[in-house]
């Protein structure tokens, strides 16, 4: 037995190894060598619908209905996701979305009749790496890179027509049933000709609370810095309830309320995640 303990004791070189992960690139996660990869990859599909409403700093209300569809491949360390929303934007302000799902008002003074635009939005891709709590004295760190590729047809006027790139770092730690978290992010926004957009930073502070092994509530305060000259920063509160029905299925309902003119007045949504393997 002692050999089993001795040869596989807690590694002293985790920090060096973590740094090596990023230098090697996430693509190596798909290497076929069993000695490199955790063999346990999970495929998860998520479907949902969300509706937000607000003026977003414009004179008129805009209603945004999103059908969410995401597919994710994950193991104990990595998660790769691809998401494609179906969008229905109704309002006078010309509103599009960035890679974080934040609305961008690109024409504050649109005063024409209510404009309804529908169609598939941009393709959102993300890759994240999680350092589990076992390595960091119960702190869990998740590093995520995101990009939005301008796949939506320009004639639909649902996007900026440019790619966005960003990254975020999420730190959390469990204290019994409570798991407070802080997420900070930065988004480099693509600049279409004729418009001025800002790169944005974001902060999310919140906590989850495990009611029981099947029910979890999450509450957070979210802030995003202004993304265009016409709008202010977005301050928002979010609350959600997740029902972990079994190992495969999680159902989540959530509500949001805006605290500033740069955020929607309210939002409501429902998500279903299902393990496909």
């Amino acid at each position: 037995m002692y050999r089993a303990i001795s040869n596989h004791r807690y590694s002293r070189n985790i920090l060096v190894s973590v740094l090596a992960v990023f230098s090697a690139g996430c693509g190596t996660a798909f290497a076929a060598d069993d000695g490199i990869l955790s063999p346990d990859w999970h495929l998860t599909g998520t479907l949902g619908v969300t509706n937000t409403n607000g003026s977003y700093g414009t004179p008129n209300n805009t209603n945004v209905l999103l059908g969410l569809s995401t597919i994710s491949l994950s193991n104990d360390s990595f998660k790769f996701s691809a998401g494609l929303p179906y969008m229905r934007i109704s309002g006078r302000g010309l509103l599009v979305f960035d890679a974080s799902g934040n609305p961008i008002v690109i024409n504050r003074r649109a005063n024409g009749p209510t404009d309804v635009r529908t169609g598939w939005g941009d393709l959102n891709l993300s890759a994240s790496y999680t350092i589990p709590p076992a390595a960091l004295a119960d702190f869990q760190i998740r590093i995520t890179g995101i990009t939005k590729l301008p796949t939506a047809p320009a004639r639909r006027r649902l996007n900026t027509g440019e790619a966005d790139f960003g990254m975020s770092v999420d730190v959390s730690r469990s204290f019994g049933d409570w798991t407070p978290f802080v997420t900070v992010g930065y988004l480099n926004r693509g600049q279409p000709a004729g418009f001025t957009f800002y790169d944005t930073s974001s902060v999310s502070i919140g906590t989850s609370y495990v009611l029981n092994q099947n029910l979890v509530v999450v509450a957070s305060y979210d802030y995003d810095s202004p993304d265009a000259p016409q709008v202010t920063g977005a301050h928002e509160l979010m609350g959600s309830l997740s029902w972990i029905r079994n190992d495969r299925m999680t159902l989540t309902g959530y509500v949001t309320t805006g605290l500033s003119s740069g955020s929607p007045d309210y939002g409501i949504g429902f998500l279903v995640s299902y393990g496909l393997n």
Partner: protein
Amino acid sequence: MTAALLVSPAWPATAAAAELTIRVDNVLPAGGIIRLGLYDAARYPDDNSKPVASADVTAVAGETVITLHGIPPGTYAIQTFQDVNANDKMDTSWVGLPLEPFGFSQDAKPFLSKPSFDEVKFTLAAGENSQVIHLQNSVKDSPANKARDSIRARQRK
């Protein structure tokens, strides 16, 4: 539910020998084997050293009890893990993070590397002694993580 095993070290017991009962808690229902090693200060830092005493016990969900007999009194440390797939090693990710539950005496928690001997040491006196170790699970699929993974799909951040 508990399981117990009496284990003796390799050398003859002395009159002043100690007995150590270790309760290993947070054992996953996944089964496998609880592998445990007792180390002194000289052997603990060396990843290839032979423990003073060791035990392999069938894992019982919840709590597994292991008793070591005939150990010289002194200062020791315990390392243990649940070998869920019984492959005789602690499985790790490609960056060396543990993929199976593990634990140290004093319930010391690692920070990028295993705790130092000073953080995990305890004194073993002649006669009966006991230790409790709660296994630490590196698996991410906690209810809190599942809920946050789900809510991330709302297309923010």
